[in-house]
């Protein structure tokens, strides 16, 4: 079965071949998911590789090549229609935007046919179910139906049969011809090798030789004396040895396989794509780590997709040759496999099904048998083409557009209505305090709660890294990590260190943590080994009590743990933040240590200017970063701050506050035209979106005179986090029926700490809108935690620099989150990673289903189950021309907008008119509706699980005068 190292008729193995192979691999790799190791989860558009196409086209192209779903299922949309989530007017509006024509001269309109095929909808006839539908399925209902069907049957033409497709890869041919699936032998072997190779420290015994690359390591293991080769892969070691003896590089191995498989060069990409798609998760991770080795959480490895392909093709070849030989075939497999064709449905069955679909359409249109018989051949063929072109995906496309339209109308009309009754200008009074949170849609309810509880507080939304891109190493971190959007590479580093007086405590703590960690690690590894495991098992009856405590009484157990762990508190720390202006540009490990005054001033000035806060600052300004902590959740990092690169944003808030408080920085900012009042003080803080814990940093540094503000803000923050927890709890069926705020807070705290909780929080689920504009547009509106809120003042942005920066940084992040959710919902099993309950964390890099499967990418069902898959509706407060002008400054945003991966609307800052981007033009929104009024958020959402429309919460209306007297 060894093939001589021949080069065949396709030429010699020379450089041009290598180059075109590398190009083919690069193209094929576009089909791979972009997800990196799961410990730092970055949301991104699942179909990033298709972003150059318009959305509606892209999802169908991807669905075709990946075998996925482009939209929700038709029955889901239909159910939404029945419960009023989609209205008839939406269908009409969507159809009106599609080209129309009569089905034949003088015949009914295409639009009418399509409307009928949406509601009541067609009989779902396929070749396979036609006989059943006729016999028992009730396809024929009236007495005249038989004749009409017969007429259609008589006239329907068989569609031109398509050429039987060439099988994409040898495995498909073998399966079609011999009924043997070579993947059953190849995939488990490859999964085993990939997981061993990529392991970041779970296995006690790392794969030998992996520093030499995947191909070399796998080949060395396979080609060893007395290897136990499973029968379908027998001879694998020999195959690898022969390659080694011929001195083939992995690239040459791939070339040789393609050559011996007799694949013409024009089909290389197709075969390679199909081979990669057989295990896209593992191949994708290897490719990701090849391009960005630094993403490996602990051990950078020499990853190469070519290595992967060399191994995969070698395995495939051995498995197929064994299977072929095992069948006793005398004819060789390779020269002929591309001629094998999969069984297809006979043309006549297809023709009959097509006739039945035509019959169904004719009946819905009310056409008589005579009318059908009288159509000319051309007219009938046109009718047939019309009906057949409005198939499942096309109907679902229109359903989806209608689904999105209803969402758009509900949001925009109420926003416009609200805008018409408010004064969007900033009140003349200085707000009592300001709280700047991340623009994250999960902070919407927290901000609303703060303003509801303390109407004199103003909240502001900004990207959660607060314009501080930094390589940060905290007191407990073993090394620094980048805290900034993934598209940015930080140039500065900041470390946290214990303050002078706390150094001894810090040392003691570090030593104790080391001891604890090495003991815990020894326990983990020991419990799995032979002798230590024996000793530990004998002692382990002691764990029954904590185990029972954790599961049966988790809160009690948590309190006990806190009590036990109170011994060594975290020492007081400070930030090594400043870098003297002159000299000191020596980079440590590629990073500049700290920021100069000028660098700090630039960052804070840009932050304040973009948020419209220049010259409008209160006496106390809270900057709240966010993140999320949970157990039982390999996707924990997906709930962290996207603007901090999938990490927790507490340090950014603390650093930004420290910068903004520095008088030297303020002086420099004044030169840049951003004034900070002398009596303003910034406090950094952190909001855990899972437990709703809010912590503030460096409170001891707050100067005298701010006590009143601090006390009131502290009180408001406590109340707001409880209120926020209460609002979140409405979505959790498991929350107590007891409706009190206190029990809701306990409930969310419990979720964060519960070993058995598969939904610690719902994360970004339900996100749908992004509003870039003044807070006054949305203040007091119940947006149901579904809107990213970016503070932006169009009146203070004549150059459009701020808007361009906000859109350029925030647009792709929000769209990435939104689209990842979209795809994980519409096809949770293939774009998402399915239910997380059988997930098995592997190598600290990803999850498999059970013991051996492809690496599952995307989001699990438990994260997305409440999500409504609609494209992000971006509403910018500025004129349409200026919105487009700002968008044009970022190529990424241009692509998202022109290809309709996001929906765009502009709200005129002067009069509040909303114009919606449809096609190439902005169209004024018809009709505005004032939002319904609720006394408080709780009144609006109490006892309701579903998505809620916008409402105006009257208790949020600001009363600056009330507080002004106190302040």
């Amino acid at each position, binding site marked *: 079965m060894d093939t001589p190292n021949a080069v065949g008729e396709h030429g010699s193995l020379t450089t041009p071949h290598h180059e075109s192979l590398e190009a083919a691999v690069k193209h094929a790799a576009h089909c791979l998911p972009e997800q990196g190791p799961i410990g730092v989860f970055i949301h991104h558009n699942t179909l990033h590789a298709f972003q150059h196409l318009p959305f509606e086209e892209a999802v169908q192209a991807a669905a075709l090549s990946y075998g996925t779903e482009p939209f929700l299922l038709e029955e889901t949309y239909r159910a939404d229609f029945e419960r009023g989530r989609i209205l008839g007017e939406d269908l009409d509006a969507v159809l009106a935007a599609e080209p129309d024509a009569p089905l034949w001269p003088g015949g009914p309109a295409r639009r009418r046919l399509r409307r009928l095929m949406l509601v009541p909808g067609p009989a779902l006839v396929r070749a396979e179910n036609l006989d059943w539908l006729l016999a028992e399925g009730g396809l024929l209902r009236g007495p005249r139906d038989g004749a009409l069907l017969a007429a259609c049957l008589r006239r329907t033409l068989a569609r031109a049969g398509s050429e039987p497709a060439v099988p994409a890869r040898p495995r498909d041919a073998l399966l079609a011809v011999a009924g043997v699936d070579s993947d059953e032998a190849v995939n488990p072997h490859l999964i085993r090798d990939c997981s061993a190779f990529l392991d970041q420290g779970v296995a006690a015994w790392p794969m030998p030789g992996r520093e030499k690359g995947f191909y070399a390591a796998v080949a060395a293991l396979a080609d060893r004396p007395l290897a136990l080769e499973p029968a379908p892969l027998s001879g694998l070691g020999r195959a690898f040895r022969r390659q080694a003896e011929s001195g083939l590089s992995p690239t040459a191995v791939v070339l040789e396989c393609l050559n011996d498989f007799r694949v013409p060069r024009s089909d290389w990409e197709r075969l390679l794509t199909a081979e990669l798609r057989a295990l896209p998760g593992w191949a994708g991770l290897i490719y990701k780590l090849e391009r960005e080795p630094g993403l490996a959480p602990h051990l950078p490895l020499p990853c190469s997709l070519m290595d992967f392909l060399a191994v995969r093709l070698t395995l495939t070849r051995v498995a197929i040759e064994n299977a072929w030989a095992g069948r006793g075939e005398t004819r060789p497999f390779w020269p002929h496999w591309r001629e094998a064709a999969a069984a297809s449905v006979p043309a006549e069955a297809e023709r009959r099904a097509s006739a039945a679909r035509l019959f169904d359409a004719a009946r819905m249109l009310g056409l008589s048998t005579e009318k059908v018989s009288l159509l000319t051949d051309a007219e009938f063929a046109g009718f047939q083409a019309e009906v057949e072109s409005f198939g499942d995906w096309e109907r679902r496309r229109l359903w989806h557009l209608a689904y999105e339209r209803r969402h758009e109308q509900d949001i925009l009309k109420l926003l416009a209505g609200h805008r018409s009754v408010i004064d969007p200008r900033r009140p003349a009074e200085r707000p009592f305090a300001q709280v700047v949170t991340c623009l994250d849609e999960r902070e919407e309810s927290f901000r609303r709660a703060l303003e509801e509880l303390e109407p004199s507080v103003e909240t502001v939304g900004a990207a959660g890294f607060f314009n501080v891109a930094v390589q940060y190493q905290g007191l407990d971190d073993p090394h620094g990590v980048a805290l900034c959007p993934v598209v940015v590479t930080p140039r500065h580093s900041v470390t946290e260190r214990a303050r002078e007086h706390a150094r001894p405590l810090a040392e003691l703590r570090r030593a104790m943590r080391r001891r604890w960690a090495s003991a815990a690690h020894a326990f983990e590894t020991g419990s799995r*080994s032979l002798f230590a495991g024996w000793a530990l098992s004998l002692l382990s009856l002691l764990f029954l009590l904590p185990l029972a405590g954790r599961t049966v009484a988790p809160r009690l157990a948590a309190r006990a743990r806190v009590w036990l762990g109170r011994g060594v508190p975290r020492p007081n720390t400070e930030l090594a933040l400043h870098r003297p202006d002159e000299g000191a540009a020596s980079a440590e490990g590629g990073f500049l240590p700290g920021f100069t005054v000028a660098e700090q001033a630039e960052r804070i000035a840009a932050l304040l200017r973009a948020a419209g806060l220049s010259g409008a600052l209160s006496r106390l300004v809270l900057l709240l970063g966010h993140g999320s902590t949970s157990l039982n959740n390999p996707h924990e990092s997906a709930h962290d701050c996207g603007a901090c690169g999938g990490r927790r944003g507490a340090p950014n808030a603390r650093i930004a506050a420290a910068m903004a408080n520095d008088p030297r920085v303020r002086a420099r900012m004044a030169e840049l035209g951003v004034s900070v009042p002398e009596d303003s003080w910034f406090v950094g803080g952190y909001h855990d979106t899972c437990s709703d814990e809010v912590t503030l940093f460096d409170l001891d540094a707050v100067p005298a005179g701010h006590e009143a503000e601090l006390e009131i803000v502290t009180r408001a923050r406590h109340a707001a986090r409880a209120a926020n927890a209460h609002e979140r709890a409405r979505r959790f069926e498991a929350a107590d029926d007891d409706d009190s705020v206190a029990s809701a807070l306990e409930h969310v705290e419990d979720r964060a700490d519960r070993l*058995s909780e598969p939904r610690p929080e719902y994360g970004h689920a339900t996100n749908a809108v992004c509003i870039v504009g003044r807070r006054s547009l949305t203040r007091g509106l119940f947006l149901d935690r579904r809107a990213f809120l970016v503070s932006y003042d169009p009146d203070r942005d004549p150059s459009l620099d701020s808007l361009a920066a906000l859109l350029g940084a925030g647009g792709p992040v929000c769209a990435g989150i939104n689209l990842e959710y979209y795809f994980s919902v519409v096809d949770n099993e293939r774009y998402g990673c399915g239910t997380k309950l059988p997930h098995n964390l592997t190598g600290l890099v990803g999850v498999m289903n059970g013991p051996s499967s492809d690496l599952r990418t995307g989001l699990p069902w438990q994260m997305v189950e409440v999500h409504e898959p609609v494209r992000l509706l971006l509403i910018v407060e500025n004129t349409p021309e200026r919105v487009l002008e700002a968008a044009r400054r970022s190529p990424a945003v241009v692509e998202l907008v022109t290809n309709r991966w996001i929906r765009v609307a502009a709200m005129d800052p002067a009069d509040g008119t909303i114009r919606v981007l449809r096609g190439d033009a902005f169209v004024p929104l018809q009709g505005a509706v004032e939002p319904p009024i609720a006394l408080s958020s709780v009144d609006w959402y109490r006892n309701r699980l579903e998505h809620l429309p916008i409402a105006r919460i009257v208790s949020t209306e600001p009363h600056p005068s009330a507080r002004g007297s106190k302040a």
Partner: protein
Amino acid sequence: MNDGLLLALPVVLPALLFAALGLAWLLDLRPSEAAVGRATSTCWALAVLAVAALVLGSLGGLPPPSVEFGRWFFGGGRHVTLALRADALSLVMLSLSASLVGIVAVFSRRYMHRDPGFHRFFILLNMFGAGVMLLFAAEPFELLAVGWELVGAASVLLVAFYQQREAPARGALRVLAAYRCADIGLLAGIALLHHAHGAPSGATAAAVAFCFLFAAMGKSAQVPFSGWLPRAMEGPTPSSAIFYGALSVHAGAYLLLRARPFLDASAWAAGAVVAVGALTALQGALVGRTCPDAKTSLAHATATQLGLIFVEIGLGWDVLALWHIAGHAVLRTAQFLRAPSLLHDHHRLHSGAGGHLTSAGAPFGALLPRPFQDWLYGFALDLRGRGLS
């Protein structure tokens, strides 16, 4: 209360709950998640209390409680007394089972929340619970076999819990094949006992011991059956914990402890138990070190300790073996239930250690020459592959 009744309660109650939930399922009645969860928790809380009372009684010097369900299978002047009897061995296993099933039931109420198979899971969990309580409380082997089969059936059905996917169905088939093959040993042993009128001697006793060993090897994933254990990790995490970390896999060891008189009668059989156990332990320790994922790593660790338990039983150290079973079951339940949090835990550990977590390397790594270490790694990987392909 009558202690016979106290003994019947933790066996019969889960069985009744299983029957009730199963019947409701068949009749297409769907009680709410909360109702199913509450009923199951209550059932197992009562079971724990009943077993605790029995243990207290036993510590207080009462004779082992027993309860009889009548005499069946009359023939040739002989019959089988279908009875439960809880000696010290049974009491340890019963208290362990009641508490661990209870813990896993409470855990699963939240873990399985909103899963479309929530009801099915709890039906199967209670079926397993009833089976395992019967297995550990049964006096005659005939009754033990009933519990044994219930445990096996529940195990197979839970491996195939995600039945719409291919891999779980294949895994379940693999488990089923291993179980059915090994169950021949249990049935053959019981048949031999019948022929020997319940009191075998000499060669028959040895044959019974070998038969039971065969059965135990299958249930406890000993070499050469051990390949099914990693494949069984297809089910939801709590079922992996209770079956393959805690109770089901220890049933084989329990059977051997029950078969003590026959093992004592044959040094060969006892030796075979030691040999099988030692091989399994070595294989588990070797293969487990190469596992890069949370669940199969635990599966091999479990097989390792099961092997050692077999060694202890073969050597006649029953008390040690029992202690080992109990501790090991608790340890693995805790570890399996924590497996989805591995990344979180590793992150904490890594930062606590200041970035220095070292891998242990090959077992006895320092003693072996490097090429042999690499060979051994490949050998371990191939053994692991056998379990997974």
